[in-house]
């Protein structure tokens, strides 16, 4: 095999590897959404701060409505305060649990990719995938962003190692640039 053929073979091998990674990256409960899909499906994308969460029963099911103060929005129009609805919660002695539905703590700041319209409760697109938590970076003094769906390290029995996928500890400046780029691309 010539050097050129060998290089071509290695490239094919690399691309097959990438395709295999893409194959396993699909969710049972959730379909893996690419970043541009998240942007596309969202009515609004905003940086918000959690005010409080409250569980209620509606149409016979337990829901958790979380109020957020809107700090800035990157896409769509939002009022100063919004309510985001998630399935599950606690009501009297009943605990309704839906695995994969994000929960929020008062004071916590996040980027949310939202579906729905003002005047009603919003929903988070792709649940954990549309939830990106903001954390201070003690080393740089800046902030980083981490997507909920990228949190748990995954153990690969073949390599006996842990791996992570998704937006993870990304500098907020880089995240904002990427977000603006995707929004601009969509509106073009």
């Amino acid at each position: 095999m010539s050097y050129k053929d060998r290089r071509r073979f290695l490239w094919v091998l690399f691309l097959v590897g990438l395709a295999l990674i893409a194959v396993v990256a699909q969710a049972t409960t959730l379909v893996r959404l690419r970043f541009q899909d998240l942007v596309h499906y969202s009515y609004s994308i905003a940086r918000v701060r959690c005010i409080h969460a409250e569980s209620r029963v509606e149409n016979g099911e337990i829901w958790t409505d979380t109020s957020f103060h809107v700090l800035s929005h990157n896409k769509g129009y939002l009022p100063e305060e919004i309510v985001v609805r998630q399935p599950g919660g606690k009501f009297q002695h009943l605990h309704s649990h839906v695995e994969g539905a994000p929960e929020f703590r008062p004071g916590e700041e996040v980027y949310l990719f939202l579906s729905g319209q003002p005047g009603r409760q919003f929903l988070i697109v792709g649940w954990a995938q549309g939830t990106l938590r903001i954390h201070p970076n003690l080393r740089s003094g800046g902030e980083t962003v981490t997507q909920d769906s990228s949190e748990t390290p995954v153990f690969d029995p073949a390599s006996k190692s842990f791996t992570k996928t998704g937006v993870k500890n990304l500098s907020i400046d880089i995240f904002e640039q990427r977000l603006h780029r995707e929004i601009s691309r969509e509106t073009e």
Partner: protein
Amino acid sequence: MTLFLVLWSVNTAQGYAFNQIVPDVRQPGSASGGSACPVPSHHLTSPAAIAFRWSTTLGTNPKTILTLDQTATGSLNEIEQVIRQSLGVWTSVSGTALTAASFAPLVRNSAANLCGSDGINSICFDQPDMAFTPGVLAFTRVITADQIGIQLGSGVPSTQVGQILDADIYFNPSDSLVSFSTPAALAPSPKSYDLESILTHELGHALGFSHSAIWSAMMFPFAPAPGTFTGMRPTAQQPDAPLGDDDRTGLRVLYHDPADTQFVGSIQGRILPANPLSLPASPPGVSGVFGAHVVAIDAASGSVIAGTLGGWSCQAPGPAQFDGTYEIGALAVNHSYKIYAEPLNGAVGPSEVSNALTSLCRNPTTDPGWPPLQSCVVPQPNLEFTTATRPSP
């Protein structure tokens, strides 16, 4: 980065990453059990204690459930076969109290909106739900009670804390780009999702499982791409073939069979900081690493046997102690295991990870009138550590 030590020893214990609930100790001990230790959600396993029904109303425009047999009767039979097979995957695991006899006969119902908090476990293929957004294929609502004697709809009152009163599985009916195929129809419809894989995963939630971070586990949150399926298909010889060892171990822990003599080993240990000053000052009382992902591997075969999220222990009357303890139970005896530990890497908070971690504590802030002596606050998971393993004396 701080160096942490993992101490481990062979012991008898239990514990796994399940949907947990803290009993309401404000109630009399006869109703709550008197302990604030978290209890995993579970079903009763007495004969015919678990009943499932499924809605025969299916989306037609577009068709969401694809079958090989196109006749109305044949199509329903094919779907029912998938449901039976998926239930069989979980009831065929050896060494558990959950058997086929634990289930009442599967029931068909033509009602479109069969799923709801009515005390009856249901599977719905064409029921819209506000919770569906783009990207959500299916989900399971699991309702448990934090005290004995709670009744939901027409179900019977709970006799155990943590007993699952209702578990409903919803498949997304409203996304025109999403369809599900029975195994027979999957090859001709490669753009659809494998109904059996997704249903088996959701049934795991309905039985009390949270997600697993083991790649090969059925409860791993990410499933195969359209046109493919998880693990192997069930066969008459191995009806639990789609499951990973991690799923089997979890089931044996959750539905312990007292008569079993094979899967009675367990590995218990603590993950402790080399420098105790690196432990969080708040909340008080944290004495070990919390939120570490611990994995047991069979030393001979190299197979991943089980993994858990460790960092806590609890003894009646509670509350949970965040002392770095992990326990992997229901392991086959006469085997050697290697233990790996890894942080939930990244700046994550307890509310962001599995319910197995977030629901370990209750206190007067979350529940007015909660007794202070049985209160606790879930700490932040440790973010960065490396481990060295040291067998205990």
